[in-house]
């Protein structure tokens, strides 16, 4: 029990720091494992190696099972094409860049292939958490990113299968891939047919659901093992079987705590077994991190923009995908198990993962995105001509989801409208439709002057953050224009009112409409 207590203490510190510093927990857990290793050596604290080995074994199974359970095709519904294009292009091109860099750094082809493959996968755990925290999980770019992550997981699993069988030659390698695909086909069949039938037919309690889910995990792992495939393939496919709605929701609550527990121990244990890479490897790690971030951001941004996403969304997608994954660790671990990678190389890949996961949360901040948007070629070459000659017009700050309707309404009522949006692609599309549009930050006083907002009849603020509306309101103090700002929280509405603006309290509006519906259906008096 003392071993578990020590590991949980490290996990508790890592989670506390994660909350305090607003960093993802995974790198902190791994660093916690490294610190524990150093302390244990210095203070002669004995941590049972069998415990560490077993938490890694169980953690691996849980990790891929959870990833499989998140693989619901519903998540990428109606976005299959952009997801496929982006995921394949990123995986291949970034992988190629990684392989070539590794070769340039002097590694053999096989090692370079592992490094390249490890670089090309991004972390589902980090990105999903980030999207959830920023409530962007269901924005179009959020769905695109999630779809890409799911595809990457599949690619990595197939790579592990191929690499495990590579020693037996191309025929054995192909046979292993075929077996994996056949098992995948069975899993797909069960996902489509059996799981929905079970959900309709049986009402299982929590205990039975949990046992059923775990039994699926072990059965498929055993089948994979019997087919001479890595058991992780079975674990992944077992997760996929359960990802069918509503089973995924029903088991999530049951498996959530088991997953959190084992994954925390897994990442600490991984940190604990790392061996110090050489100085040269650390330098190589730095070069690979730079290649990873630069190539991912440029590649994903360019491709996503071409696929019709806004500049900001494309940039955010690029930045969010610029880290290596827990599946990179899995691949490196498999490489080490197969004797293709040394312990130091595994450590180097682990350190790249720790560093890039930490960097993601730092470089995905708004200020960095804004900075990068200013460097965007379209931004630099966009027309900066203003609309100073306009007066008694309407200014819409932030096009957003409701922009189309608002602009249409204003035009229908005889107002000339200027849209200010930070997104180059949005502005371009509006201009193509013959509308007045300016790319820029709607809370910036200079931009407000460019659209002559002071002389406008009305300024409508629907930017992403309410704080931007407050800045715009302050900049427009004393102006003749009425300022209307969208808010969600009551305290935001109060602030808008205090600055002389007219708040559109969306939560209040939705509540009012809902109550009217209840009354009209005689559900309340």
């Amino acid at each position, binding site marked *: 029990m003392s071993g578990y207590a020590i590991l949980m203490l490290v996990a508790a510190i890592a989670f506390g720091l994660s909350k305090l510093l607003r960093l993802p927990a995974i790198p902190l857990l791994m660093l916690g494992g490294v610190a524990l290793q150093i302390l244990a050596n210095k203070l002669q604290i004995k941590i049972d190696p069998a415990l560490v080995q077993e938490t890694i074994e169980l953690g691996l199974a849980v990790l891929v099972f959870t990833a499989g359970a998140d693989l619901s095709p519903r998540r990428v519904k109606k976005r299959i094409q952009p997801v496929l294009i982006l995921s394949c292009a990123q995986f291949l091109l970034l992988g190629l860049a990684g392989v070539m860099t590794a070769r340039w750094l002097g590694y053999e082809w096989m090692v370079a292939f592992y490094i390249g493959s490890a670089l090309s996968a991004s972390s589902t755990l980090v990105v999903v958490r980030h999207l959830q925290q920023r409530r962007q999980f269901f924005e179009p770019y959020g769905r695109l990113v999630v779809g890409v992550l799911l595809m990457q997981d599949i690619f990595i699993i197939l790579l592990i299968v191929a690499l495990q069988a590579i020693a037996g030659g191309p025929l054995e390698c192909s046979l292993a891939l075929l077996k994996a695909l056949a098992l995948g086909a069975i899993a797909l069949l069960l996902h489509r047919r059996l799981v929905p039938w079970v959900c309709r037919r049986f009402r299982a309690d929590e205990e039975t659901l949990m046992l059923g889910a775990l039994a699926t995990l072990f059965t498929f792992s055993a089948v994979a093992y019997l087919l001479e495939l890595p058991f992780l393939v079975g674990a992944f496919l077992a997760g996929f079987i359960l990802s069918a709605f509503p089973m995924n929701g029903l088991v*999530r609550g049951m498996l959530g705590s088991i997953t959190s527990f084992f994954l925390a121990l897994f990442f600490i244990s991984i940190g604990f077994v790392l061996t110090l890479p050489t100085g040269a490897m650390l330098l190589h790690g730095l070069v690979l991190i730079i290649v990873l971030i630069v190539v991912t951001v440029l590649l994903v941004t360019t491709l996503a923009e071409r696929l019709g996403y806004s500049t900001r969304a494309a940039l955010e997608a690029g930045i969010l995908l610029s880290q290596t994954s827990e599946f990179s660790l899995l691949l490196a671990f498999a490489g080490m198990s197969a004797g293709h990678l040394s312990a130091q190389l595994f450590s180097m890949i682990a350190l790249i993962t720790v560093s890039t996961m930490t960097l993601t949360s730092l470089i995905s901040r708004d200020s960095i995105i804004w900075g990068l948007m200013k460097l965007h070629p379209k931004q630099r070459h966009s027309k900066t001509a203003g609309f100073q000659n306009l007066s008694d017009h309407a200014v819409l700050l932030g096009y957003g989801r409701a922009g189309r309707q608002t602009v249409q309404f204003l035009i229908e009522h005889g107002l000339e409208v200027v849209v200010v949006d930070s997104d180059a692609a949005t502005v371009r599309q509006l201009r193509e439709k013959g509308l007045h549009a300016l790319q820029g930050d709607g809370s910036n006083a200079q931009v407000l002057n460019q659209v002559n907002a002071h002389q406008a009849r009305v300024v409508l603020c629907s930017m992403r953050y309410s704080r931007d509306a407050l800045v715009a309101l302050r900049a427009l103090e004393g102006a003749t224009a009425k300022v*209307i700002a969208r808010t969600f929280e009551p305290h935001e509405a109060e602030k808008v009112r205090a600055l002389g603006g007219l708040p559109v309290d969306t939560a209040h509006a939705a509540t009012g409409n809902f109550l009217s519906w209840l009354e009209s259906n005689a559900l309340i008096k």
Partner: protein
Amino acid sequence: MDSFSEVTLLLDLGYIILAATAFAFLGKRIKMPSLVGYLLAGLLLGPVLGLVAIGHSLEMIAELGIALLLFLVGLELSFDKIKDLGKAAVSISSFQVCLTAIGGFAVAQLLGFGLLPAIFLAATVTFSSTVVVIKLLDQKGHMHRRYARLAVGLFLGQDIVIILALTILSGLGAGSDFELAIVLKSLGVAFGGMGLLLSVVLVAARYILPRPFAWAANSPDTVFIWALCWCFLIVLLAHQLHLSLEIGAFLAGVALAQLPMHEDLHRRLHPLMTFFIAIFLVTLGIRMEIQEFSTVWVAVLVLSTFVLLIKPLIVFVILTRMRFDAHTAFHTAVATGQVSEFSFILLAMGASSGLINGTLVTLGGLVGLITIACSSYLIINADALYKTYKRTGLFRLLGSKRDSSTEAEETRERHCIVVGMNAMGRAITQALANRGLEVLAVDTDPKKLTGLGSAETFIGSVEYESVIEEIGLRRANMVISALQIEDANHLLAYRCKSYGVRCAIHAFDLSMVEDLLDLETAYLLMPSADGTVAQKNILIKEGLVKI
């Protein structure tokens, strides 16, 4: 870490989970408690097929299960509840241990066992299994009942006696002679340790834990990991103080039970406990030795009958004499009708120190298997048994007070459930409560549940089936979700559709609309669209556009 093929623990766990699942599913067909299914799975894997041997890792996982089970029991006990039943539990456990031990000793002597074996058998039949009983009561959803708390108090009292017994036995086993000084010192350490542990827990509950947990309240993962860490550290401290893992875990839970998020924490930890405890119960079956059944079957049957009938009767009489009502006394008594897993340890220690022979270990194991299996049925069906008992008119014969139980289940009905206390959730909650409706507001963050007027509040996540039951979703008039979590909203809509409950769900993205309509959502909350309409109204009202 050398090879993927070296996955011994995973292989063992695979066998355990598959066998447990098979027996649990089959057991459901014949209404067999899952616990019995787990024991049978263990018997199949161990004594029958010899597929799984208990190693250090499985033992550790089983211990984690016990620790988590007791931790969860502690998590449900506020200081007030402990004060309510604490003293009674101590008195009951003292009487019960003495009377059952005397009875057990007498039965063993009648069966022809010598002095020392009779003492060991008396100890074996005296103690009940905390793990088994709590697992069953938890399965029945009765852990909050008065009789369940009383039973837990009784079992923890037994634990203290067990600690004393094991301490004395260690003294006996330490050398060839009984060294009184060593035993007394060990007893002093045990009592001192108990005092120290209690002090640590009380101080922590009052002054140390509330602030950090309040700070982390909006991060469920952090709270979850901190709670587990706290549990393991206190268990470790208990171990250092020569106290049982159960007592440490229980007290760790009690300390966290004083925090506002203790119920949500309980629900989050519950699946983890279920997983570990299932493994523990299967390993219990694996350990059973059934080879010598033919030589000891008479003693096994007699002692099992004693445990299943006489022991509960002793407890029942004690409780009725202490003026507990018939319902509480009956249910508590039924809960004691099995032997504890500690008894196996006690017998194993006795055998290894040469005080008794190995046959007694087999005998104890078989009594354990039979009584645990039978009492599982009795506990699960205790309500039906109680009705039969009431009809027989045995109340008067045993001098029990008439059933005055006021433990009627609080059930909400025709209420409105609002999930997610963001601005919209709060506005809807307040609006409905102001119109006199019975409203239950649900969120995982306790801070968001304050200032909601007459609405009731509930801390928890609707992703858990237990929360769905506790908030009475199937009896609700309407469910409203203001959450901005697509999966949770879909699942909630699905559950509402299954139960035929009307629901209104926050469709914060147009892509959700189709799926939610497929799930027969009655109303889609769309603040973005509603905001656009409100904005148009403001433009008109302020004369900014001409109509």
